């Protein structure tokens, strides 16, 4: 079938090129993607094999009332190819008059290494009542790397899996991941991002939200996007193809840089927050218990508490908690409760004074659920600021609130510099993350190793602290492992509102050892370019990489998910200038061996255990 309408603008083939890609659209019979290749390398992505049916490269297929409509049923009514100083635009206009449907297939080329593939659709329903339309994009479903001996797909909701198939990367909606296919050996390939500024699935005709929740091959191959087109042409999908060259680490770095360009980092760059970078070990101090409270003296025994903390390597922050679950017996609110704290606010100030003497900072909680509904954030902010003035505390724990009202920040800043706010929930939006510089890595019971905290690597300046309040026994070991693997601190919480779940002496010693190692290698753990899930040479062996910003050293933290030890070449050292390696967690041997792949790090990692390898000059 040839539905091409005679028009001088209409060509059989359209060629698009930029620094990294060559693309050919075939408009002879509908719209098909004939070629989409990485240019300089002649490394093919989507070029049909001779034995593949042409329909595999269709731009889209619609389904209405069970009947399928490929682009070949549409007439090509116009083709436009234009360019300005920064972009090139190709628009193929399609029309299917039988159903009053119009569509556009659009390529928007940045002339460098990115091309957006956009589909727009409109239907003028004969009876005026919209119906559901389902869309499948064969070109996307058949996306793969030809000419690659071995390639890997990275799905937006499951970029790298654990052995059980679940994502090893604990994702964050502020830093969504693309779909990607990359050559394992050479690192080349494509990523497809799904740019969209809405968070609400049904509110937009654009179905990028469906696509960016893709988590496996089945979804990719069988996607069917539900649409409700109206009379006006609107976006249905917008796929941003980008040429990748550095494998997973390169793509991760590129994405991080892309996100960071949009961030206002002012809060993270404040000199008065420098102290908080060293606040590695926090203690959740539940006041209604003998861990903290001396019932005979009727006061909190801060010295005894901090002495106990020495077994963990020393608490850097304590959070004094005495409201929940007591609030609500009468009308007193959280601020009244500070008046009634043992010794009153002066009692808190005395604790702060003693803690500061010992190098420990003191936080108080703020309960977002315990404020009157008619109170503004400014009114509450004044109360919070007064509390800082009265007690000289160093920060606030925001409990269930995963955001920070600007008024709180502004009013507290007027009272005392360097007061940190942090939340129990991990913020999932750029706007909140720009203001709230720290949060808990709270993983409850679903956290299994390896579990990598995406936000810790995407925004390393945002300080995360691992906590799983109900973990006991070997689950506490896993909590420690998770903190180590992610290169972050821990919230020690042993008295969970009246349930006493202490750490064992061995676990305390392990936390202490981790704190010491972290402190000795801060230049790596506080660096700007860490890479999660750095490629290794064993299945089931995972690695997070923390290169120092100076390039003088790199820490690799490995976790062996297998039931057997792994021994031999573990991974390739990313920085050829680092000529030495040592294992600094278990004391096992490690060395560098040069091969044609690069400098392989040889060592061993016990089954379901960690290893920490330091590479240095």
């Amino acid at each position, binding site marked *: 079938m040839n539905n091409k309408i005679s028009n001088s603008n209409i060509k059989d083939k359209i060629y698009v090129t930029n620094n990294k890609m060559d693309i050919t659209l075939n408009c002879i019979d509908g719209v098909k993607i004939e070629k989409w290749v990485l240019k300089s390398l002649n490394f093919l992505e989507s070029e049909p094999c001779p034995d593949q049916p042409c329909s595999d490269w269709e731009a889209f297929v619609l389904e209405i009332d069970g009947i399928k409509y490929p682009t070949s049923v549409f007439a090509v009514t116009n083709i436009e190819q234009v360019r300005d100083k920064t972009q090139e635009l190709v628009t193929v206009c399609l029309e299917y008059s039988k159903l009053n449907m119009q569509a556009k297939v659009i390529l928007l080329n940045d002339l460098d290494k990115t091309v957006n593939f956009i589909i727009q659709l409109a239907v003028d329903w004969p009876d005026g009542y919209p119906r559901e339309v389902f869309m499948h994009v064969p070109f996307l479903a058949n996306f793969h790397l030809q000419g690659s001996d071995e390639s890997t797909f990275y799905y937006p909701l499951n970029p790298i899996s654990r052995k059980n198939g679940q994502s090893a990367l604990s994702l964050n909606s502020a830093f969504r991941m693309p779909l990607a296919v990359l050559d394992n050996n050479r690192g080349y390939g494509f990523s497809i991002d799904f740019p969209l500024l809405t968070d609400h699935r049904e509110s937009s005709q654009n179905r990028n939200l469906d696509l960016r929740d893709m988590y496996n091959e089945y979804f990719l191959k069988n996607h069917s996007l539900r649409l409700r087109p109206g009379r006006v042409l609107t976006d249905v999908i917008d796929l941003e193809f980008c040429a990748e060259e550095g494998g997973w680490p390169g793509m991760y770095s590129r994405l991080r840089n892309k996100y960071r360009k949009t961030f206002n980092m002012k809060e993270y760059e404040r000199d008065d927050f420098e102290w908080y970078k060293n606040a590695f070990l926090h203690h959740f101090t539940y006041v209604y218990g003998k861990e903290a409270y001396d019932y005979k003296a009727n006061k909190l025994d801060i010295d005894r508490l901090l002495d106990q903390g020495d077994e963990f390597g020393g608490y850097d922050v304590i959070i004094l908690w005495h409201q929940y679950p007591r609030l609500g*017996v009468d009308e007193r609110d959280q601020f009244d409760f500070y008046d009634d704290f043992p010794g009153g606010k002066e009692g808190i100030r005395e604790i702060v004074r003693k803690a500061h003497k010992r190098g420990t900072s003191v936080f108080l909680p703020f*309960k977002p659920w315990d404020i009157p509904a008619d109170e503004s954030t400014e009114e509450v902010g004044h109360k919070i600021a007064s509390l800082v003035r009265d007690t000289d505390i160093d920060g606030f724990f925001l409990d269930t609130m995963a955001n920070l009202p600007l008024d709180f920040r502004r009013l507290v800043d007027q009272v005392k510099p360097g007061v940190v706010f942090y939340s129990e929930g991990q913020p999932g939006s750029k706007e909140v993350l720009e203001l709230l510089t720290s949060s808990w890595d709270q993983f409850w019971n679903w956290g299994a190793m390896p579990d990598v905290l995406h936000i810790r690597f995407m925004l390393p300046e945002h300080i995360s602290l691992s906590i799983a309040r109900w973990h006991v026994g070997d689950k506490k070991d896993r909590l420690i492992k998770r903190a180590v693997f992610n290169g972050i601190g821990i919230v020690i919480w042993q008295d969970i*509102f009246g349930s*006493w779940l202490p750490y064992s002496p061995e676990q305390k010693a392990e936390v202490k050892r981790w704190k010491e190692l972290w402190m000795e290698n801060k230049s790596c753990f506080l660096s700007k370019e860490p890479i999660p899930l750095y490629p290794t040479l064993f299945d089931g062996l995972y690695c997070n990489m923390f290169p120092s910003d100076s390039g003088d050293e790199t820490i690799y933290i490995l976790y062996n998910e297998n039931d057997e030890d792994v021994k031999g070449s573990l991974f390739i050292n990313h920085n050829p200038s680092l000529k030495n390696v040592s294992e600094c967690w278990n004391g096992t041997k490690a060395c560098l061996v040069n091969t044609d792949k690069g400098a392989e790090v040889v060592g061993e990692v016990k089954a379901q255990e960690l290893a920490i390898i330091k590479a240095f000059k």
Partner: protein
Amino acid sequence: MGDHIIKREMVLVPKTSYIYRVHHRIMEGDCQYDHGPRFVELDKFYIDKYPVTNHMFKEFLTESGYAPDDSTNFLKHWDNGTYPEGTANHPVVWVSLKDAQEYSKWYGLRLPKDTEWQLAASGTLKYKWPWGNDFDEECLNTTGEIAPVDSHPLGASPFGCLDMTGNAWEWIGDVQDDGEHIFTFLRGGSFYKAPHYWHAEGGPHPTDFHLKFQLLNEALNRNATVSFRCVKDIKAADKGGREDE
């Protein structure tokens, strides 16, 4: 209620046994106590018909000269050593467990155990509410403000106790020490109901519900909603009489 002043009256709870089972809303931290079901045998005892009122507590202060070591929030609603006008018969609040124990001791009484309070409230037929098994607004205080202890005669328990739910919480004398924490229980619920899920659950509560109350300093141990009533043990010589079945 006029100008009458309610005086202490006690009712007899005969010796009996019952299968005790108490519930509490399981918030974080749990409640380290044997909630049953378990078979308990209780000697007969007297229990206050009403919670201790402001007037009764003032009499105690006058008679005993009691002054707590830490007076923070002690009788916070009083002014110049006396209760506000018109509140003589309101349950006394802003008293800590210790204050309540001192009161009881002065009169040769004690605070009820959890098992005793539950029996006094529910009777041997184990009513869900003191007056029966169905919630009934006529039987309790639903005004949202504290009320005189004799406001709802229809709310009497099978043994004749009044005001056992929905007006003021009541201290229980069982103090628990699980090795790490010291706590006791509140019974009956109160006129005040905090708005949020994460707040302690106020309002009226059934006879088989208690609220874990973690003890700390006296400022926090005293509350605008917590009162108490007392129990009198019956001496061995007086222990004759009919046993309730």
